[in-house]
């Protein structure tokens, strides 16, 4: 157990042996991407996609290293407190951007990913209380539970990217309806491409979270008392909400602007739910009760 503030004071002394030092560096990279994108938007010029990708990749590498250090320290996937969950979600969103953004060459998605990752990493770094306690070996060596939790958080990263794509969709829709096509709007992807990418992300996120819940459920039925029912209810509700949105999209009942707004609202709800289902208890030692979070 360590106090976040103590660790941050070490960062000021540039101590690379601490994971928070690397988290700060990763956050700084994402912030640099945010500054690059914002400057381009203000100048109404496209930012350099190559430079943005380099910044995001460097941030991602540093972020991966920081999570690795933390993982070694807590002897498992580092998702044991709000700080780690925010970091892991940001890392998941960036991982997906590196696949989706470069495959589909979506303009501005790198900027928005930088924005999301910078917000999640720097916000959690600025809240020492979120990282006041480390729960070591929270999965009790159970690889399936660890897989379940990591997969669930990874699906949150997918939903994070989906919310960014939804924001781009709403901006493109606004620009087309209002005939505002120059300036920053000129760099937005086509509305059909955004709709397709959003749809695929929604399917991916729902499938990942479903898999995570199935893995978690298979353990929970054998140990029903080990998991907080409230936590299960919240997580299942999030999945149900996304699955319903997907079902309605498949049937053509909710699509376009409405679906984009729903996806943004659901991600906000999913982020808020993390604070409800994340354990706040101090560390209980290496063999603490396995968690089925989020």
């Amino acid at each position, binding site marked *: 157990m360590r106090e976040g503030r103590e660790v941050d004071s070490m960062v000021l002394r540039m101590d690379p042996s601490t994971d928070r030092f690397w988290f700060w560096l990763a956050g700084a990279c994402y912030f640099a991407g945010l500054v690059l994108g914002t400057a381009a938007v203000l100048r109404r010029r496209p930012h350099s996609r190559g430079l943005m990708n380099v910044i995001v990749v460097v941030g991602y590498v540093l972020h991966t290293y920081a999570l690795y250090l933390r993982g070694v320290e807590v002897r498992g996937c580092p998702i044991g407190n709000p700080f780690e969950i925010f970091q892991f979600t940001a890392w998941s969103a960036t991982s997906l951007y590196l696949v989706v953004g470069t495959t589909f060459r979506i303009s501005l998605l790198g900027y928005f990913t930088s924005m999301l990752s910078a917000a999640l990493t720097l916000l959690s770094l600025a809240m020492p209380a979120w990282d006041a306690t480390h729960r070591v070996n929270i999965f009790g060596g159970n690889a399936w539970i660890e897989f379940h939790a990591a997969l669930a958080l990874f699906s949150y990263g997918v939903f994070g990217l989906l919310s960014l794509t939804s924001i781009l969709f709403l901006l493109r829709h606004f620009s087309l309806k209002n*005939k505002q096509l120059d300036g920053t709007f000129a760099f937005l992807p086509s509305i*059909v491409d955004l709709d397709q990418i959003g749809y695929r992300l929604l399917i991916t996120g729902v499938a990942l979270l479903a898999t995570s819940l199935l893995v978690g459920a298979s353990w929970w039925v054998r140990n029903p008392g080990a998991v907080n029912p409230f936590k299960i209810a919240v997580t299942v509700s999030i999945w149900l909400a996304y699955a319903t949105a997907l079902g309605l999209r498949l049937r053509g009942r909710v*699509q376009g602007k409405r679906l984009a707004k729903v996806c943004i609202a659901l991600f906000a709800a999913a982020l808020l739910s993390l604070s409800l289902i994340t354990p706040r208890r101090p560390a209980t030692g290496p063999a603490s009760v396995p968690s089925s979070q989020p």
Partner: protein
Amino acid sequence: MSSPDVPPSLFVVGASHQTTPIELREQLALTPEKLAQLHDAASRLAGLRELAVVNTCNRVEFYGVATDAAAVAALEQEFCRLSGFDPATFATIRRMADGSDVIRHLVAVASGLESQMLGENEIFGQVKSAYEGAQQRRSVGPVLNRVFQKAFQGAKHVRTQTAITVGQVSVANVAVELAGTIFGDLSETRVLLLGAGDIGEKTAKAFQSRGAGSLTVASRTLARALELATEFGAVALPFEQVSQRLHEYDILVCSTAAPHAVITHAAVAAALRRRPSHPLFFIDLALPRDVEPEVATLENAFVYNLDDLARIAERNRAAREAEVARARTLVGERAEAIWRQVAPQAGGRLEAR
């Protein structure tokens, strides 16, 4: 006559849309045969060391290296003889420059800064073809090789570092660009041309040239629709079926002469219900309008009329023009840098003419 004491001079002489009215410009452009004859004649001109001819519908310009002004005058006379142009008239429209001004002019031309449609892309390819043609005829040497190659680099720099090529400036191209912002790749899109207006045809052609998936033509008279469909290599659709089959198309280019709207809110709403996640794009080029204004209130319908497209084209044109000063500064910087490299070989001045 070349003199060993006089350093050769880089020059450009020619005429373009900037100095020449269209009725004279029609006579300016050289046919490939005449161009070959001119090159043959030029190769026999004493004092003319290198030559490249930029020959487009809007400009005929001779870039060369000469050791005396008489060679340039002889080249002009040869051009007038071959094209049948009156030498006295040519003297009133032609512009001439030498030294670094030649390079400045060439970079500006290749950048699209001197084009009738500011920032257009085609000129770059035309200048490149002119240079390649001259290379094949072996009429370019060390000076023009360097000047043209560096000018291409300079023009690319100007085009990428400024916004002079950003945004389309014709109604038809604006419509196609807009379709790209809705559908992305146009190769899967189905275009319906409704009516046989001239601007509608131009827009349909623009869609075809940009690789639209398929084109269907509907007109009040089926015979006219069939005629147009044959011309475009498209399919004809009876006008009465348009409303029922609206959902089959992605882009509608409307340019009928109907006195009232032919695309109703109810028909579009019904079509969108059958394709809930696919937008419909209406390009209404007709006056009075073919598409009911209420159609624009439907979430997945995007309606642009002639005024909207003209406004976008005008805004793009203004944005390009706003970049001209910056582009000219870049052209000047590049031209000076190139000139420093070629001045030792072609730094002489032609006699005052």
